[in-house]
């Protein structure tokens, strides 16, 4: 690759958006005396030198840019898989109540926890398909009865709800031996 093509590569690899010929020209001082035909020729050299690389030179409506070839999208997309946030204690408590005391209504959850149930938490649990509405309780207002799903069992690697420790066990077990510190970061 000649020097001009290399400079163009460096400019395009650090550009936030596509750059037109005119914009590329502005990167050079008048002493450097880079002409349009020279620029075009250098861009051609650059494009040829991207053969066999993971990226290619593309000319879009607003100008030139270096972009990743599509066949690498599988891997490149994984940049976006952010490490998910942790679930709140509230969510875990509500999920635990639903698991151990299903079927359970919101009112019953509120009674045990002593605070109103945040609708967003129930929504999250429903979306995650860990809980579902088992039916409606035949009391005024016909509240929904909530229970856990098969996905819940699968996720927590339980064969059945019987595999959940009993309430007595939950109360007495030394969790210090169970809770494995999540790796930081």
């Amino acid at each position, binding site marked *: 690759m000649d020097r001009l093509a290399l400079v163009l590569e*460096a400019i395009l*690899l*650090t550009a936030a958006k596509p750059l037109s010929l005119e914009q590329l020209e502005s990167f050079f001082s008048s002493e450097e005396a880079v002409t349009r035909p020279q620029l075009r020729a250098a861009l051609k050299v650059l494009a040829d030198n991207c053969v066999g690389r*993971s990226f290619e030179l593309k000319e879009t409506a607003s100008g030139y*840019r*270096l*972009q*990743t070839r*599509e066949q690498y*999208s599988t891997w*490149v*997309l994984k940049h976006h*898989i*952010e490490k*998910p946030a*942790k*679930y709140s*204690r509230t969510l*875990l*408590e509500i*999920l*635990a109540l639903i*698991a*151990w*005391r*299903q*079927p*359970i209504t919101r009112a019953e959850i509120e009674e*045990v*926890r*002593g605070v109103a149930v945040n609708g967003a938490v129930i929504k999250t649990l*429903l979306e*995650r398909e860990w809980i*579902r509405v*088992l*039916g*409606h*309780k*035949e*009391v005024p207002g016909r509240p929904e*009865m909530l*229970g856990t799903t*098969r996905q819940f*069992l699968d996720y*927590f*690697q*339980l064969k*059945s*709800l*019987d595999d959940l*420790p009993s*309430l*007595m066990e*939950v*109360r007495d*077990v030394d*969790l210090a031996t*169970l*809770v*494995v510190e999540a790796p930081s970061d």
Partner: protein
Amino acid sequence: MTANVVNPRQLALPVARVHGKPITSVPEDLYIPPNALAVLLDTFEGPLDLLLYLIRHQNLDICEIPIAKITEQYMGYVKLMHEFQLELAADYLVMAALLAEIKSRLLLPRREMLSLEEDPRAELVRRLQEYEQVRQAALDLDNLPRFEREHWAAQTAAEFEPPVRAQPEVKLPELLAAFQQLLKRADLLTHHQIKREPLSMRERMSRVLAQLQGQSALSFASFFAPEEGRRGVVVSLMAILELLKAQLIEVHQADEAYAPLMISLPTSPQAVAA
């Protein structure tokens, strides 16, 4: 702003005594306008920096500095600051006091040699050396190639499909811990007694299977009778889960979100036989 920027001529302070020659008078170039003096003071990082400048400016070695000479120059500087009523940082005055002490010691008749730890000159030289080391380290640091000064991240555009949002992870012990806390808080155990009822569950399993006989499928919800109370519903659920586990029944869901679960007898004959 580095000391190198300072015009050396401006700082060419009069030498108090050179090779035995006595000092004549303060040369005129010491009388810098107060504003310029304030700027000069700004270019120094502190008294040690000023002292180092005075030493280096005369091509002297720190370890062989003529203390008296340097002290006088420094004092001349401080005096000048006072004359122009420039606010001098306390640090400069602390150094002036130290230098004055050294100077007065040098005036005293020579007694037995002081040990290194006791000699204030040695302490001053040590501090000057240590500070010079830091000053050099700062320069070295600034000279290192730096990201976004010499180097930039090479990036290509990659506008593929929208990103996938991942779900938070949680482990059973965490769930247990949350529940344990809740139990402690609500003291559930004293008010509610929940026991597993294996027998009633077996019975319920039979009932579920009976209900399904001759039916193509029944909705999951139809197995629950809320009037039986919480315990009854739990037993039904457990019964159904047990049946599923034993592959005695099958569960289906239409291919849409939140479609009702349908329960049916298995289609394969051997499962029915079991």
